[in-house]
């Protein structure tokens, strides 16, 4: 064990990666953004341990890893409920928790959502690639050697800030904070709000109706790049080859076989399939907590309303950040 090892991976789990808020600024070179899928859970987890909101967290998918801590640390787990436990006892979510040296954290059944975010005081420390810690598995770069966590991986945490230290001191008595975040239950079951995509009007009337009125199911051919959906096929009024242009998080493309793909964090920077819709940013966390087999219903929202809701969400997050800061001052 190296001098600087603070955490060892005892079991690797299904798909766990180090992510921050993404690798922005290089899309003109075709570099994929990556970053957390559920920015809401990621940010709250970071606030709870006293980190900056861009500090790298672990994004844990469906079946979590087993992690052994070699030092005392403050952690928080937010997002989907993957039954976290500590030395065999259930571990509360949306709370600041003091983890003692040699403690083992495990995950069990996926009870709700699909992805948990584990933040640790100081953040997970990995070399930055193009200014970001985010793992892009397909490109094999970022995070831990550009891949998912593996058995026996050793991780270290970043430098401690004043706030990290204050939270640590407050919790040394009680281990688990006697309060948790009064987090708004923002995760919708299946409803996803969308704006019209650039080629929306080019789809047939019946396709436009079906897109909003019929359900779509997330298939197993889905990952951090995008969700492939299955439902009533959609068609353009007439076939045309489209010039490739930019796509973003939440762009819904229709492939030539008529099925939608919702693009996510590991999406390509540009694409050539027609875009029927664009998911409202405020619903990205809900999208992130869906999994193969889940049903999605799309509902129309205007750009103005979507931006208004996003600003409300941002005010709430800022309030929470300030509140946590005050709690530990």
């Amino acid at each position, binding site marked *: 064990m190296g001098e600087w090892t603070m955490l060892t991976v005892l079991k690797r789990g299904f798909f766990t990666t180090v992510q921050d808020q993404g690798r922005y600024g290089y899309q003109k070179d075709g570099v994929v953004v990556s970053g957390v899928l559920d920015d809401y859970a990621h940010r709250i987890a970071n606030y709870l341990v006293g980190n900056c909101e861009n500090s790298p967290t672990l994004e844990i998918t469906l079946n979590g890893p087993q992690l052994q801590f070699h030092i005392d640390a403050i952690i928080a787990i937010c997002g989907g409920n993957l039954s976290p436990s500590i030395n065999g006892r259930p571990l509360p979510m949306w709370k600041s928790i003091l983890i003692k040296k040699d403690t083992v954290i495990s995950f069990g059944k996926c009870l709700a959502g699909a992805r948990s975010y584990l933040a640790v005081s100081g953040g997970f420390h990995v070399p930055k690639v*193009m200014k970001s810690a985010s793992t892009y598995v*397909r*490109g094999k770069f970022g995070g831990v050697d550009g891949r998912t966590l593996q058995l026996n991986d050793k991780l270290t945490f970043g430098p401690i800030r004043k706030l990290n230290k204050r939270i640590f001191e407050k919790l040394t008595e009680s281990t688990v904070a006697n309060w948790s975040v009064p987090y708004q239950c923002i995760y919708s079951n299946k409803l996803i709000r969308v704006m019209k995509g650039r080629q929306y009007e080019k789809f047939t009337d019946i396709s436009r109706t079906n897109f909003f009125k019929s359900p779509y199911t997330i298939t197993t051919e889905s990952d951090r790049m995008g969700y492939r959906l299955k439902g009533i096929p959609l068609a353009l009024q007439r076939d045309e080859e489209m010039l*490739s242009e930019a796509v973003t998080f939440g762009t819904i493309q229709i492939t*030539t076989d008529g099925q939608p793909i919702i693009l996510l964090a590991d999406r390509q920077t540009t694409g050539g399939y027609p875009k029927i819709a664009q998911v409202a940013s405020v619903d990205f966390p809900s999208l992130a907590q869906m999994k193969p087999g889940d049903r999605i219903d799309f509902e129309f929202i205007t750009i103005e309303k979507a931006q208004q809701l996003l600003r409300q969400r941002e005010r709430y997050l800022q309030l929470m950040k300030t509140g946590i800061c005050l709690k530990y001052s």
Partner: protein
Amino acid sequence: MNFQLYPMGDHALLLEFGKVIDSEIHQQIQKVTNVLDHSPPSWMIEYIPAFTTVTIIYKPTEILYKDACLELNKIVLNIEEHNEINQHIVPIPVCYGDEFGPDLEFVADVNNLTKEEVMNIHANGNYLVYMIGFSPGFPYIGGMSERIAAPRKKSPRLNIAAGSVGIAGKQTGIYSIDSPGGWQIIGRTPLRLFQIDKQKPAFLKAGDKIKFIPISRDEYHEWVNGQC
């Protein structure tokens, strides 16, 4: 400059300068991105240039849709006409057909050509890199003869090897990393178009001119071994 503004959801705006691949339009886009490089608006996260469009990703927490439109209009209308264009010719060796180009036959069939004819037409074109996109370092290349145009695959392949040279509609391109994709694959280059450890990770940039050089299977393997 003639352009249209379109929203892309609640956090992006798209400037469109035309509907066809054209070197004039390409130059207009280069001018816009130059201005965005030199004086980036505070509310912009980044921009993504493409054949006929520039997409601006912005922070809706800092600027609302309508105001972003107004600001962008102002920026583009104030651009002064001035000329700068790089004329850099980059040779790209390609091994066509067989296991490196499983769709060469399909492209030949839809165009009533032989595989050799497709290869010759592809290798004798004058090409311009219009944009880098889709995946790290992936060049979208204009200038391909319409005689070898071919539709995208009905459903994208789940994995295409890095270096694969493909055709989609009237475009040709090169896969820079292993990735899924819907292009018809006609050959493969031994060059590495994206290397994370290089100071400039992308081998090509928008504005480069390129020339495809057909190579044999042996030359391909020699090249790959030489790189190690």
